[in-house]
């Protein structure tokens, strides 16, 4: 427990020290972008990680949060931070009917609606020029006055994003340990069984979905206040939504820090490739290939894959572990075949595990 606290402390210290380590404002601004990605990916993971419902359209909620915040600030002149929270709440309210429509049926419809939401919002925000600024974009007033120079803005927003991330992580952690979280995870593993065991699946899914939309909207709103300019094409972009998925999946959707880790890796990689290779369309190809590889070979992300790798060299008995229904089926399938290649049998939730405990469980 002590070392675990230490680990988190080191992580927090690394995040807090980043601005003073950054040699120039550009790198600081990259840091802000990565933190923003981390907030969005973690928010996405409330629904993706707990319920297993993959939303490709979370850019809808970040975009709505951004526009909500911006329009409130511009038209009512209220405090920008209040506007951001109001924006988040507004999006959460809006997420209720969307959730009802898309969660009533399982799986496929949810994904279809998530994509449709992005496309429809892009249309609306582009066309409804009088309110949204249309395709001209919308400038967002700064939350700090003129005397706060740009580098200092970056620093403040870095910490603000970090704080928002901390809150999101805390909530995720709390849900993870709660009865509610257990119910959600039951849905992820087998919705029919969960329902027959008395889990109010629809209400649980809807709640997780609304919480996710709320945090995503806050992330979007904060980004809007930092960046200062909204363009519907980039706010309501399928690509932004898929980044969230890629980051979470890569890091591991079942672990608390998975999306954060994914955001750091993907955000850094994007910046690195841009620096190295610049002018090609290959960023799309690379993103597509990476996503494909993750889906096919590492569907549980890096953290479980890495910890499993470590486990191989660590004979250690385990207490209780979580196994998903899919994994069990997989185990059963591969049990008879050549058993050596069970690499696709990941430990979940970075709980310790080894071959022995599997044997015991079976």
């Amino acid at each position, binding site marked *: 427990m002590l*070392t*675990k606290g*230490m*680990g*988190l402390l*080191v*992580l927090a*210290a*690394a*995040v807090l*020290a*980043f601005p003073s*380590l*950054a*040699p*120039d*404002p*550009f*790198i600081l*601004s*990259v*840091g802000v*972008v990565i933190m923003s990605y981390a907030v969005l990916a973690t928010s996405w993971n409330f629904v993706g990680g707990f319920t297993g419902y993959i939303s490709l359209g979370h850019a809808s909620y970040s975009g709505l949060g951004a526009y909500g915040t911006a329009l409130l600030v511009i038209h009512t002149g209220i405090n920008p931070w209040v506007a951001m929270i109001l924006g988040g709440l507004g999006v959460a309210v809006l997420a209720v009917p969307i959730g009802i429509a898309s969660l009533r049926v399982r799986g496929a419809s949810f994904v279809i609606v998530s994509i449709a939401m992005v496309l429809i919002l892009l249309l609306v925000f*582009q*066309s409804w020029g009088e309110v949204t600024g249309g*395709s*001209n*974009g919308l*400038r967002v007033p700064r939350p700090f006055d003129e005397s706060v*120079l*740009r580098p200092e803005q970056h620093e403040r927003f870095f910490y603000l994003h970090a704080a928002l991330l901390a809150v999101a992580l805390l909530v995720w952690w709390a849900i993870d340990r709660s009865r509610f979280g257990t119910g959600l995870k039951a849905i992820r593993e087998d919705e029919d069984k969960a329902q027959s065991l008395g889990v109010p699946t629809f209400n649980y899914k809807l709640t997780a979905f609304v919480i996710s939309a709320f945090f995503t909207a806050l992330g979007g709103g904060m980004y809007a206040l930092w*960046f*200062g*300019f909204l*363009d519907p*094409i*980039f706010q309501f972009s399928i690509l932004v939504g898929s980044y969230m998925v890629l980051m979470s999946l890569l890091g591991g959707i079942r672990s608390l*820090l998975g999306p954060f*880790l994914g955001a*750091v890796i993907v955000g*850094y990689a994007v*910046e*690195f490739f*841009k*620096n190295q290779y*610049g*002018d090609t*369309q290959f*960023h799309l190809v690379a993103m597509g290939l990476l996503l494909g590889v993750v889906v096919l070979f590492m569907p549980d992300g890096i*953290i479980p894959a*890495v*910890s499993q790798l*470590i486990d191989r060299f*660590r004979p*250690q008995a*385990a207490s209780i572990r979580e196994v998903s229904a899919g994994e069990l089926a997989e185990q059963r399938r591969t049990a008879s075949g050549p058993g050596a290649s069970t690499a696709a049998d990941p430990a979940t939730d*970075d*709980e*310790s*595990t080894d071959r022995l405990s599997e044997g015991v469980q079976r």
Partner: protein
Amino acid sequence: MKVTTHHRLGVLALASALTLTGCMSSGSSDEGEEGEGPITIGISLPLTGDFSEPGKGVQRGYEAWADYVNDNGGLLGRDVELTILDDQSNADRVASDYEKLINQDGVDLVFGPFSTRLVVPAAQVAKDYGFLFVEPAGAAEEVFTQGFDNLFYAAPAVADDHYNYLADAIEALPEAERPKTAAYAAMDDPFAMGTAYGLKTRLEEMGVETVVDEVYPPNTTDFGSIAAKIADSKADVVVGGTQYQDAVNMIVSLRQLDYQPKMAAFSTAPTNPEFPEAIGDETEGILSPTGYTPEADYPTNAEFVEYYTEREGTPPAEDEANAWTTGQVVAAAVEAVGCADPDPECQQQLIDWLRDNEVDTVVGPLTWDAEGRPEGAHLIQQYVDGEIRIVLPEDAAEADLILEKPEW
């Protein structure tokens, strides 16, 4: 196990924070050598993505300008050196590019990117660091109403004024000969809409009735229904606020419906050399505003056309000319003030100088109002006998304006 993973994560994060900072600051920043060595100029352009075609045109213009300056003794006796980044036509990227150019690469000056969508976020960064921001594209009104006191548009006129000469010509007609009805279709893009609506405002003032007013999303490919509306209205004039491909599509769709207007004006597309090929032989009489023509007899233009043609094999088009103009404008300010470094004081002097002075460029002499709007107008071109010629204003005309468009 949980312990180690968390621990590991923390170390990983710290390590990556360090490599991030270490790795990315490897760019050469030339602080402390101001006044010596080359003058570095930072530019971000959309070399991939939606705006890649015009983006590359602007790049050619910038590079030709830099070589030309270096062949002719440099700027303040120093060579100029361009650092061009690709923003993938993405507004988030364009801001971070200028952030990088200014902070990490330590450039002395910046030039603007392409398109209104990208100009606004880029200008914000430049403004925050006190940089002069002259841009080659971003003609829409929205660019100038954002309170940027560092911005100048290096072209003859803002989008809304592109058709001014045409509007003047129509106004000069006797009442009975003027068109009665007009149909407008514009892409939902600040620039394209600006051109069409600029003319719309003028025509409505003259009492020309608007019978169709359509705005379509940038990526529309099916113009069947828009064309159906325009054809059904039988408007005398059709005005397209277009980029390139949408104009081609719209014209093809209008022809499919056998609609014959008396006057047809489209922005941007008709000046593209590929346009007549795409449309076939039916271009006769199509009008278009243009900010540049290689034939113009402004003082520096002949030299520009000659230098560029020798370099690239083809005469420059509008994008290249606007890039070149941007170079000329900044160079004029730098020569006059005598400094070119990132120091806010120097940049402010450059800004102040441009505010009060006229600059001779390849698109004519330019002056700006307080928001950075250039105070000129675009020439009007028309396809006459299969060639695109300047028809308005009369003192620059190469051919007579055809008022009654032949059938297409």
